[in-house]
């Protein structure tokens, strides 16, 4: 029977997270054992004796000292945790971008070249991987203990996380946010492969990339009839929009990121671009995969511009 007591370290985060964990463990155990020992020792030393009076002591210096020391320790722990957190949020450039969609009760995963898998994730070792995720229905949470990473997948929203695997192998993948009946079986494995092996594995993918699928959808849904460069254009042209500021009708500006573009597809009237009327219909039949494909296409339009 497997009985590990220490979790495997398989990402660049693991060593620094673990250091804080074990340091805090030592500190809390020391503190607890210390306090309990002092309590018992005092309880024995000052066990009630007839005839001995209790002596009440007050000591302001001591009070201030044991208020200040925990405050300092707490701030150190905060800072330590914050430094690690900066690493979690500081997503490097040139990541391998993988999309994940949570759905009761499976993880649908798509690699940059369009290759899909379900409840399994293949990633190369030694390469920064960025996961962008959303959910088709309820809240889920993409959790890989060996990498020490976790992120909620939230419907109608994009969240992201990154990691760099350091060790070839197979590790469990879980859903950590309770999501209904089969929550506990929503998961599978993460396989870390050598970079060559990963490339080889990817080759087996379908011929269509997400951006290509998005372009097809863009034509089929008739988006192109309004969002074109013609003179009578009823909607803004999308070339070069992604990642740039957009001026809205009410004078505010927003950056056209994933969230904004998703919102503009799903609730078109929420933020209207300056100079246009709120004419765009909604598309309730699009699922999260379609939207991700459209997003990939719109992103590719901005790449072309540059």
């Amino acid at each position, binding site marked *: 029977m497997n009985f590990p007591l220490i979790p495997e370290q398989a990402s660049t985060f693991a060593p620094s997270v673990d250091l804080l964990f074990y340091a805090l463990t030592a500190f809390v155990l020391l503190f607890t054992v210390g306090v309990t020992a002092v309590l018992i020792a*005092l309880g024995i030393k000052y066990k009630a004796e007839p005839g001995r009076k209790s002596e009440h002591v007050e000591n302001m210096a001591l009070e201030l000292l044991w208020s200040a020391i925990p405050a300092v320790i707490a701030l150190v722990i*905060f800072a*330590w945790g914050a430094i690690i957190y900066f690493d979690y949020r500081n997503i490097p450039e040139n990541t391998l971008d993988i999309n994940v969609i949570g759905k009761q009760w499976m993880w649908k995963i798509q690699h940059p070249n369009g290759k899909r898998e379900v409840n399994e994730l293949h990633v190369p070792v030694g390469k920064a991987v960025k996961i962008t995720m959303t959910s088709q229905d309820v809240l889920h949470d993409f959790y890989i203990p060996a990498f020490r990473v976790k992120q*909620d997948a939230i419907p109608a929203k994009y969240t992201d996380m990154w990691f760099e695997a350091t060790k070839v192998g197979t590790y469990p993948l879980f859903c950590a946010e309770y999501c209904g009946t089969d929550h506990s079986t929503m998961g599978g494995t993460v396989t870390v492969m050598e970079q060559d092996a990963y490339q080889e594995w990817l080759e087996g993918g379908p011929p269509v990339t997400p951006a290509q699928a998005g372009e097809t959808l863009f034509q089929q849904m008739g988006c192109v009839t309004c969002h074109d460069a013609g003179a009578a254009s009823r909607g803004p042209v999308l070339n070069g929009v992604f990642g740039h500021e957009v001026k809205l009708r009410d004078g505010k500006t927003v950056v056209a990121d994933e969230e904004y573009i998703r919102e503009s597809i799903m609730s078109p009237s929420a933020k209207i671009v300056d100079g246009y009327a709120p004419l765009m219909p909604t598309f309730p039949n699009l699922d999260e995969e379609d939207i991700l494909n459209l997003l990939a296409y719109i992103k590719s339009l901005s790449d072309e511009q540059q």
Partner: protein
Amino acid sequence: MANDVVHGTEIPPRDHTRPEVNYLNWRQTVSSWLLSQDHKRIGIMYLISISIFFVVGGLFATIFRIELLTPEGDLLQADTYNKFFTLHGVVMIFFFLIPSIPAVLGNFLIPLQIGAKDVAFPKLNLASWYIFMVGGTLGVAIILLGGLDTGWTFYTPLSTSYANTHVFLAAIVVFVTGFSSILTGLNFLVTIHKMRAPGLTWFRLPLFIWAHYATSVIQILGTPVLAITIFLAGVERLWGVGIFDPALGGDPVLFQHMFWFYSHPAVYIMILPGMGVISEIIGCFSRNRVFGYEFIAFSSVAIAIIGFLVWGHHMYVSGQAMYSNLVFSLLTMLVAVPSAIKIFNWTATLYKGNVVWATPMIYAIGFIGLFAIGGGTGLFLGAVGLDVPLHDTYFVVAHFHYVMVGGMVMAYLAGIHFYWPKMTGKMYPQTLAKLCAILVFVGFNCTFFPQFLAGWLGMPRRYHSYHEDFQVLNVMSTIGASILGLGFIIPVFYLVWSLFYGKEAGSNPWGARGLEWEVCTSPPDPHNFHETPVVTSEAYAYTGEETLSE
């Protein structure tokens, strides 16, 4: 009057006989209980009701702990398992932990400790119990009708658009029960402000009162937000509109903000009164004035205030902005300071005292040890970078239970054992009770310590079946739970036994200080005090000459 001066240097003579007329026997009809406006009887009614709910919540836990012996999830269906952990949470939190110390011991003791004849609004107090019971009855109805499977946190959109169980009814239950809690808090706050006996200034109050004061503030300001949040979720469920469901334009994360705005302070509703009980017991059985009285008093208030500013630490991985997370993390760390102050001051109270290892004292020392671990592991989860891997794992489950069971339930048991002679006039067998306290301590650690390890290894919470790597730890946990269960059952027997066969306790069996011990009989008079007592000195005026009456 002989009774006028208490808390003086003279210890008043103890009364060893049971008063002929007391609050328990002066009227014997059923309606004299069910319509009683006497805070003591209402406290007893709460004691009986929440004990029943504790058994119900405990049964759910028992069954799913057996289920968790094997990784496969073979005893219960997944849906049944989900219902059981949800109902365990809902029953334990809303019907046991939140009312426990305030509604039972707070009701019973606050007027006695401050020298009042009753709480400020006795009718409202009775109404609170009825509201609680309406909520409780509907809660039982949910169980009988087929349960609830959203988790006690009711996260949207699972609860509003996807669950097929009695979410709407549950929303009503939480809403209704919340008002019981609000009205109790309101009653206590007014009572503490306006009903204190002459001479009982703020800094002469027992720390139990300070703790309840802080608790009441949270109950009044926090609970209405939960009520309206759960009301909105109920409306969403009923009408099919999208307040929190993104498919209909709503924002599920807003629900989390509003939910935790109450539910984080709510954990301080659960633990602060426990800390109040511990202060009383540590003072009494150290035969010493509590060290750093003002620091303990103000630390309760500080916890209540900071408690309202840290809700976002439940949402580090829910896509919250990075800087929000950092601010919430920083504020969360501040809670450690008042908590540590309490621990140090309790410990120092023993110094140069006359320590008596009575049953309540053993529970109290157990409480401090377990609370140190519970609070300390809060540091792990408050540090935002470390919370990322630990969030929503068994580490959180263990942390929460160390604070709520290791802290709160230990304190509740400590309080029940301390005040049982006052409430009933009877003594329970001491040796058995001490063994039981140790049993609870050991069983508790065996149950929940392995869960820290399981969480650190990566076992997510609310899992019906799990990875085989976690099995050994889960088996250990279930074995521990059996010991813990035994530790909870035995006291029921000897306490009930004591009602019939126990020794008469007398007015002050512990040799404790305070109006409830020195002026009131055991059980107290229906009107608490024949004459309004006058207080002339500080609380905990122990000298070391007090003795146990045995």
